[in-house]
């Protein structure tokens, strides 16, 4: 028989400790123990390395677990005397945290955790989920003990009600009230259920709780069951969560072994059995009646309510269902009391909410925040802001059945009622952040496709309505939508909401409705211009750079041509949509570069600099704008010779009309002359491009001010103009320059709420035959945006003068797709070329650094960094056509 010792002294004999003298320490301790006659009761032995090599030699003394560092032979006498004889700790030798460890910021100082309050997640990531002892060590099952020994069921319900705990599964129904319904329902057999059928894309709150702290759910359910009078329960968890299933199964086994599950729990009359039911992953089974049908072994389909589960639930018995997070909150509520819980959160939403924060933020993960925190705090403080410094666009809350909040609602407090009022929902807690690169129509399509595919098919509004909505949204993302489609969507949505059997059908339209509400412009860009501004809708995005351009300049094509030295052809392609290539090569904001796919790899292609090189290489040649249609007798007046007015005039001249441009200044150019400093845009460059435009057959009348020198009536009656386009521009962020605004109102023209000229979608003002475009309509913008406006208003006026119909029509120019001329694989490592610089004289006569045009070699090499998205698009479309043919042949 092994000898029993009063104490064991373990001396580390690992390599590290030996190096610092543990052999000598061991010998000294043995000798001292021997000398004091303790050898019979104290054993001194060697152990392996404990990982404290830096503090060796280390000595551990059991059973107390006293841990000494840096114990040398000279310390042996004091150690034996103090600890082994007197039972005291030698402070001098006790372990001290190395100084460097203290300098590490604590979790509460990290922005990610600073604003979090962890109740449901308090143990997640902290305790070993497979150790029931660790759960118990952190007050586990203490709430259950308190409840079964000190409280009547009704008191449990009252406390839950007082605490204001609301269901975390989406609807936010008060948990205590729900328990009371089930308690008061007639029946001797009752059930509690935990809904762990979490299926929202991007949501993993419930999974993490079940994986990281399964006992909190078991304990919560026990408390609920006690309140309701249930003796049996189910956790319905999807089988796609294998680790959650495993950890929960283990927790149930352990809880049963310890007697927290079973008969006469903790010596009381209360008995409870818990089962785990694995679901097959149907989204609709998250709906409570479908979930219960699935547990019963039937097809997972919802049924009409009432009767509610509290009256007739699982196998017709009164049943209470709460979700994972709700149950995980319950033990803490009972451990700390209703007042504690009420002190967190807002007036009507108490406590915290767990969110799965995903998407384009720096810190993605699982967060638990007090109710009432703002979306801005979540995104920018906890989430650490947007990835790659991109602009925030929206956040989708509540999963595929939730809604979207735009930047203007970032300060919305996160609670059930505020989110609902803002058109979003709390849902179960998915939170997907998207940036400026996301197409909101495509985003809505994704969720709509998900939700309609998950329709169980039982009720018609959901099954058919979802498909019809999807047809419409797909039509829009394919560029074939009509303005009427935007009317149809809310109508179908209303029917689905009114007539669907369950929340799945009722809420399927939500993402479409909320994006329509906040991002209508994006829907309109797809419908009216066949353009996806972010370049995310594949059918209508030949290349994202082209789609991003407000004037739809075919950047992909002119880059490919420039790469081959074909500058004249490149410039010709540019001019089909934008006559101001040299100007834009110098001053454009380059929307194209923001969406360039190369930017997702390293840096976007320097499209603007390429454009400048290309345009300046080819500008010397005189341009005669091609005629696009037969000659017409009608005459058009354009007021304003800025980029919008000149572009509109050019297009209408190309369409065959007689055009006269009136301008207040003494030469044409508008803001391009008056608003851009000479050193950025020299006047000779500008004049060259304007004279090209005028060569299309455009007359210019300078020093002619609308309202002073002529009126609209003059143009239409005495002037004989069949249509007038107002492209007056503005220097102001809001409204028009004062004299223009006064003159227009005096002539009976309506302004909008921002003080700009009010127009309908076809650019028509409140006066017949008078159209308006450019900054006077959209507010102070850029050259390329004004050019886009000029193209579009020209298309509308052309259509009107030829057909008599005022209608938004597209100014569409097909993209040219030049053949592949280099191997992109050779340019994988090529870095974006630096801009060239030169010096120029500023208006004040100072010498300043300005960008210069590139040399040919730099420009051509930069072109070859282009990934040729247009060729991929061409291949995709060819494949689609082939597939359609194959299908037709079958």
């Amino acid at each position, binding site marked *: 028989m092994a000898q029993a010792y009063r104490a064991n002294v373990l001396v580390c004999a*690992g*390599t*590290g400790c030996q190096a610092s003298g543990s052999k000598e320490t061991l010998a000294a301790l043995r000798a001292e123990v021997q000398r004091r006659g303790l050898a019979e009761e104290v054993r001194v032995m060697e*152990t*392996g*390395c*404990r*990982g*404290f*090599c*830096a503090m060796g030699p280390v000595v*551990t003394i*059991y059973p107390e*677990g*006293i*841990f000494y560092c840096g114990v040398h032979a000279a310390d042996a006498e004091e150690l034996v005397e103090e600890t082994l004889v007197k039972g005291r700790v030698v402070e001098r030798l006790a*372990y001290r*945290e*190395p100084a*460097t*460890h203290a300098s*590490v*910021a*604590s*979790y*509460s*100082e990290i922005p990610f955790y600073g604003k*979090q309050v962890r109740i449901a997640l308090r143990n*997640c*990531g*902290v*305790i*070993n*989920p497979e150790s029931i*002892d*660790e759960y*118990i*060590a952190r007050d*586990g099952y*203490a709430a259950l*003990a308190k409840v079964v*020994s000190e409280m009547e069921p009704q008191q449990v319900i009252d406390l839950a009600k007082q605490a204001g705990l609301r269901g975390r599964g989406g609807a936010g129904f008060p948990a205590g009230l729900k328990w009371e319904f089930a308690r008061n329902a007639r029946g001797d057999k009752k059930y509690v259920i935990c809904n762990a059928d979490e299926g929202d894309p991007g949501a*993993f709150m419930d*999974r*993490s709780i079940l*994986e*990281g*702290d399964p006992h909190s759910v078991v304990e919560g359910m026990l408390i609920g069951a006690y309140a309701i009078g249930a003796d049996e329960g189910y956790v319905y968890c999807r089988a796609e969560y294998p*680790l959650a299933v495993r*950890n929960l199964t283990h927790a149930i086994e352990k809880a049963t*072994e*310890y*007697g927290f599950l*079973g008969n006469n729990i903790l*010596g009381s009359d209360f008995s409870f059995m818990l089962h785990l039911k694995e679901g097959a992953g149907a989204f609709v089974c998250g709906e409570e009646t479908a979930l219960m049908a699935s547990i019963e072994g039937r097809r997972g389909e919802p049924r009409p309510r009432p009767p509610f589960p509290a009256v007739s639930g699982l196998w017709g018995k009164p049943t209470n269902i709460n979700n994972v997070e709700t149950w995980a909150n319950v033990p803490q509520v009972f451990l700390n009391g209703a007042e504690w819980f009420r002190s967190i959160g807002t007036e009507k939403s108490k406590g915290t909410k767990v969110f799965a924060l995903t998407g384009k933020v*720096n*810190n*993605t*993960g*699982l967060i638990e925040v007090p109710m009432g925190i703002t979306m801005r705090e979540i995104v920018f403080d906890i989430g650490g802001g947007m990835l790659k410094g991109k602009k925030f666009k929206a956040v989708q809350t509540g999963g595929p059945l939730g809604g979207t909040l735009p930047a203007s609602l970032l300060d919305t407090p996160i609670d059930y009622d505020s989110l609902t009022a803002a058109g979003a929902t709390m849902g179960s807690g998915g939170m997907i952040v998207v940036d400026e690169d996301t197409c909101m129509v495509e985003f809505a399509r994704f969720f709509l496709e998900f939700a309609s595919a998950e329709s169980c098919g039982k009720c018609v509004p959901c099954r058919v309505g979802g498909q019809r909505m999807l047809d419409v949204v797909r039509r829009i993302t394919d560029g074939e939508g009509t303005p009427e489609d935007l009317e149809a969507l809310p109508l179908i949505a209303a029917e689905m909401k009114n007539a669907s059997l369950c929340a799945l059908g009722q809420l399927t339209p939500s993402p479409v409705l909320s994006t329509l509400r906040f991002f209508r412009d994006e829907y309109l860009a797809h419908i009216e211009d066949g353009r996806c501004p972010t370049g995310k809708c594949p059918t209508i995005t030949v290349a994202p750079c082209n789609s991003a351009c407000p004037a739809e300049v075919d950047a992909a094509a002119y880059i490919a041509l420039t790469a081959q030295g074909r500058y004249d052809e490149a410039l010709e392609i540019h001019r089909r949509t934008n006559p101001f290539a040299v100007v834009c090569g110098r001053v454009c904001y380059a929307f194209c570069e923001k969406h360039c796919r190369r930017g997702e790899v390293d840096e976007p292609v320097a499209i603007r600099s390429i454009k400048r090189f290309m345009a300046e290489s080819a500008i010397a040649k005189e341009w005669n704008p091609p005629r696009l249609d037969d000659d017409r007798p009608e005459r058009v007046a354009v007021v304003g010779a800025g980029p919008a007015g000149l572009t509109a005039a050019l297009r209408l001249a190309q369409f065959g009309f007689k055009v006269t441009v009136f301008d207040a200044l003494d030469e044409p150019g508008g803001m391009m002359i008056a608003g851009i400093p000479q050193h950025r845009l020299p006047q000779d460059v500008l004049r060259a491009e304007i004279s090209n435009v005028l060569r299309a057959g455009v007359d210019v009348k300078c020093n002619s001010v609308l309202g002073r020198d002529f009126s609209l009536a003059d143009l239409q009656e005495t002037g004989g103009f069949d249509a007038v386009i107002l492209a007056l521009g503005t220097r102001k962020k809001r409204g028009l320059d004062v004299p223009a605004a006064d003159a227009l109102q005096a002539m009976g023209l309506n302004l909008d709420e921002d003080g700009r000229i009010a127009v309908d979608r076809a650019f028509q003002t409140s006066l017949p035959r008078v159209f308006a475009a450019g900054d006077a309509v959209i507010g102070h913008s850029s050259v390329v945006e004004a050019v886009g406006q000029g193209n579009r208003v020209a298309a509308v006026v052309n259509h009107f003068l030829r057909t008599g119909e005022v209608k938004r029509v597209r100014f569409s120019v097909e993209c040219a797709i030049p053949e592949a001329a280099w191997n992109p694989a050779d340019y994988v490592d090529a870095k974006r070329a630096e801009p060239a610089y030169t010096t120029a004289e500023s208006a004040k006569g100072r010498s300043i650094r300005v960008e210069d045009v590139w040399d040919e070699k730099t420009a051509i090499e930069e072109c070859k960094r282009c990934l040729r998205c247009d060729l991929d698009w061409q291949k995709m479309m060819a494949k689609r056509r082939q597939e359609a043919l194959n299908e037709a042949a079958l």
Partner: protein
Amino acid sequence: MPKIGSIEELRALKERAQKDMKVRLGSGTRITVGLGTCGIAAGARETMRAVVDELARREMDATVNTVGCIGMCFNEPLVDIEQAGSPRITYGNVTADRVPRIIEEHLVGGKVIEEWVVGRLDTGGN
């Protein structure tokens, strides 16, 4: 394990569990790997294996523990080191190839690797 039949027994168990943990943690090194689904997806299983292998190679007798998700999915795989009951030092993005250096510098050298450290978790280790 006999069933717990009363609150007193539960209380006693809690105290014993806390004490056990304290002794265990107070005298040794515990390395904790986040093995939630997010951690596993980021390679935490490989990290875990590397920790076990590295400890075996160095003949170190440290406890290796697993936990679920602590929320910082963007920093997964996460590895915590607790020594002698002091706060957990959390390292982020600990792919398997980073494990030897952490053991070398933190355990053997007693120094925190500043550039990999995420934070100090004070709630652990009770």
